[in-house]
């Protein structure tokens, strides 16, 4: 990647908080400026490191939410009540303050318009973040790759990027929500966990050779990947990224 001094070598860089966007009651996006940023590909993540006054350090990984945009990098962070890092990022950090960050990291769970499609994205909760980077990259490039997002959330209030997804729909992008725990009055969409029947209805047929990206908590990703294989999709075309309870 252009601008990277030594290819592959990761170094900790200072990133300055520019802006905070409230996404849902538990999720915020922090927009950072990283002067040395070499650019990234949709789906990549960064490691964030916080150092306490006594020298104690905590590191977590966060997916990049934004399309490549100069030195700006947006991370969407779910606040974990007993978290060591996320409450600081979402509630304590103020514009102008700095944190340590390294990246971009990862080369497997990435998509670029030149990779083509059809693209089938399957998100569980905040697993939508790296997939949103793909959708934003596709939109920024005015790419028309046929893309579908199946996005599972607990309730309508927990849907991250709800308005932007609605705005970006069309031009080959279809967004299908399922609300697992509660639904607003008059909801006619899916109201259950993602299952094989839902994937069969929403995903392109195996004959269309879709590329899958599934991201979410481990049980969600396991269930989706198993169902897709059972529906006859090619295992190497199913890329997965599992979120843990400690950060991603």
């Amino acid at each position, binding site marked *: 990647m252009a601008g990277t001094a030594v290819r592959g070598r990761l170094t900790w860089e200072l990133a300055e908080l520019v802006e905070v966007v409230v996404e849902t009651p538990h999720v915020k996006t922090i927009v950072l400026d990283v002067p040395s940023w070499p650019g990234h590909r949709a789906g990549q993540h960064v490691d964030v490191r916080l150092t306490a006054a006594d020298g104690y350090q905590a590191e977590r990984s966060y997916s990049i939410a934004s399309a490549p945009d100069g030195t700006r990098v947006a991370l969407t962070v779910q606040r974990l009540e007993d978290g060591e890092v996320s409450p600081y990022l979402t509630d304590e950090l103020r514009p102008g303050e700095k944190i340590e960050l390294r990246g971009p990291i990862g080369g497997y769970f990435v998509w670029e318009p030149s990779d083509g499609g059809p693209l089938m994205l399957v998100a569980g909760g905040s697993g939508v973040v790296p997939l949103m980077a793909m959708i934003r990259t596709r939109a920024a490039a005015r790419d028309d790759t046929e893309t579908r997002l199946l996005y599972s959330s607990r309730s309508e209030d927990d849907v991250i990027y709800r308005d932007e997804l609605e705005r970006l729909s069309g031009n080959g992008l279809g967004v299908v929500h399922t609300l697992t725990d509660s639904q607003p009055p008059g909801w006619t969409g899916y109201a259950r966990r993602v299952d094989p029947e839902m994937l069969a209805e929403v995903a392109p047929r195996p004959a269309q050779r879709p590329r899958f990206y599934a991201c979410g908590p481990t049980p969600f990703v396991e269930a989706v990947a198993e169902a897709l294989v059972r529906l006859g999709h090619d295992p190497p075309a199913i890329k997965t990224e599992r979120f843990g*309870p400690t950060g991603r």
Partner: protein
Amino acid sequence: MDELMLDGNAVAGLLQEVFAVEMTTAVGTCGGCGAPGPIAAVHVYRGAGIVLRCPHCGNALAKIVKGDSRAWIDLTGIRVLEVTV
């Protein structure tokens, strides 16, 4: 299934720190069952150290312990590691 299990994407930063190349696209061949696959897809368990297991047979591919300025890496469970150079 262990809900605390993660995958190779979760240790991409640590692996790149150690090997100085992007490692999630590296392909490891399991020393147990012989199945090849991308490091991104291995199962990862984090405790005092990190254990990478084959997603097909569960064999421990690698064990990594990270200290402040050193890392100890046991790769006895990987037969071949194919890396882009």
